[in-house]
């Protein structure tokens, strides 16, 4: 009886074989729909901050500078990879990638930062996106409502078919080198 049990225990591996994976050399492919590191597509992002305000782990931070630049910082170190941000993004700018090997000793490696040029809503003073061709932009292009001189300069040179490159050609366009140091009085 004793021996029979032991033999049974010893025959299990002969059926299953060695199951150890050659992990770091040959990772197992992630299945479809895997929730790995979220990746932001800055060309799609409209800066609505839906991801930031719905993140259960509060790991997406939002900051406006001078009502022109909206900075979105995603700090992966606290992320739970629930994928709520990807679900809620109205423009589908966030995809849950298959990347899961995120261990690092430098937090910056897994931090993503997006700087978006925004326009100021004349009604409420908050930012909205400029680099995207959305309905609001179109209204703006046609000079529907703007009374800020700076904005007028930008838009004065733009065409109805607005492209982000046009923006860079304008005289007032200057991307701050160090966002933290940029002083603009209002911040």
């Amino acid at each position, binding site marked *: *009886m*004793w021996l029979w*049990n032991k033999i*049974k*225990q010893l025959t*299990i591996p002969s*059926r*299953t074989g060695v*199951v150890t994976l050659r992990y770091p050399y040959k990772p197992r492919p*992630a*299945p*479809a*729909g*895997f*929730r790995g590191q979220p990746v932001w597509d800055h060309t799609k992002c409209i800066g609505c901050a839906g991801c930031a305000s*719905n*993140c*259960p*782990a*509060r790991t997406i931070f939002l900051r406006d500078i001078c009502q022109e630049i909206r900075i979105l910082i995603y700090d992966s170190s606290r992320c*739970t*990879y*629930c*994928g*709520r941000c990807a*679900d809620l993004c109205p423009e589908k700018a966030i995809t*849950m990638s298959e990347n899961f090997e995120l261990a690092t000793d430098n937090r910056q490696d897994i931090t993503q930062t997006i700087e978006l040029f925004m326009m100021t809503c004349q009604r409420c003073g908050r930012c909205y996106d400029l680099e995207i061709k959305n309905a609001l932009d179109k209204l703006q292009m046609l000079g529907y409502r703007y009374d800020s001189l700076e904005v007028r300069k930008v838009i004065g040179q733009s065409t109805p078919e607005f492209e982000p490159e046009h923006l860079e050609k304008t005289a007032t366009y200057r991307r701050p080198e160090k966002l933290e140091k940029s002083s603009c009085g209002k911040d």
Partner: protein
Amino acid sequence: MSRKEELLNLLKDKLRGKFLAGSSLEDKRLFIDIKKEALVETASLLMKEGARYQMGVGYEAKKNGQGLAMVHTFAFDADSLLVAIRALTTEDKPEFDSLTPFIPGAGWSEREYIDLLGLHFKNHPNPKRLVLSDDWPEGIYPLRQDVPYDLMPPSAEEVAFRLDEAPPGSSIIPFGPFHACLHEPAHFAVYVDGEEIKGCEYRGFMVHRGIEKLAATELTYNEIPFVAERICGICGSVHSVNYAQAVEAASGLKIPRRAEFIRTIMLEIERLHSHLMWLGVAGHLIGFDTVFMQAWRIREKIMWLAESLTGNRKTYGMVIVGGVRRDIDLTKADLIKKTLSEVEKDMLALEKAIIKDKAIHRRTKGVGYLSREKAVEWNLVGPVARARGLDMDARRDHRYAAYDEVKFDVVVADSGDVWGTLVVRIKEIYEAIKIIHQCLGKLASELQGSPLAIEIEGPVPAGQQGLSVVEAPRGEAVHYVLTGDDNRPERWRVRAPTYPNLQAVPDMLLNNKLADFPIIVGSIDPCISCTDRVAVIDRKTAADRILSRQELEKLSREVRSKT
């Protein structure tokens, strides 16, 4: 007359003026408001009627100018009825009568609110500090509304938890806070005489994360499921489903049937995972590493399955209030069926290899014995209770999700020891596989194309109570939600199955051998993080202060002499 009305009438009749109100949104719940003088009387009436004590919930009802509230919940398993009694007290004299003298299982629930709310319980036999760290300043009660969620009081030196007097002739062996047989920080001071355990004192609650406080101050209704599932590393879906059910009950939300079936499947996959994992850990704890590795080899398949279903190795991220996030379509259903048949085959092979092994019998039979009466007294739940002959299972007794449409057996053993738990948990693996197959059948045939989730329409009305139970792999988990303003619950209380089971561990350990300590503690599958979820974030945990009191004293003396 239903059992609920019977009880309501009985209480009205006996309590007379002390009965304030009784309400219920669903037909299987009963929420009663009473005057605080009648707390003991009501509780003993309910216990006499055959109730099982579940948990206590304390909260500050300041918003309504009502002072402090204490809710005790009871389960009538035979009648699928959950009863919650609530009493209020004023803030200047926050005192209730203690239920612990006649319900020992209420001990922790009450001690918790001594710490967190500053309540007093008259006649509590052991009102020691339970939750807060030893150097937490007196007079700050984290769950009070004026205490911010991120408060970090300065830590104090040379404060230590006072252990009870060791029985004469015994010495103390400290198990924990970090010990190979405890997979999370918890401290058992074990009093041993030679190799025999003569007593044990537990000091836990070292993994505070302040989840309940966060939910009451920071998060919103649909963010909480993602935090709830991270209460536990194993029963993620249990807590998120449980929370969602409690909110849905409180707000009167009826979720799509398909979502309920998917939730059931996730819960059962989780059970498979948990049982296999526990089987492995149990093997490891008795020094049988082959069982450990083989059980975890089978478990890995479940984890890969979960990865395909939810997008991650754990059963996380499936549940939101109002339904589920991801569908289980036909290809995924096929994958589940394939995995389950493999798991079943592997499990049968493993079971055959170990179930008659005399060496395993020798280490588990008669170990950690607790009689049926004691099990009732301590309100044990789950496989630990079922191993002691208590025929209880929330899936059958308090049907939730889609369990009313599936057939399964509740496995009961009566040996009352670790061996019984082992048998119950192994058999439940096959029951879980059975349930998943039935659910998949339903999903494929009747529920094609139904929506996965519905939105909460408009704000959830404030002040509603919701109570939900889910049979976690380790036993019954209870969630209580009191809805509040600002799109978040005013109070959300989680009682994990380990909470009652752990209270009985000192009794189980008594007169066993020291070598059996790991497997006895392991037999309840203690989920310390589930149990400790409450309280306020305290990054410098009490851990490094209690275990090595002497060592720390020595250390601090050395430091002082150097400076």
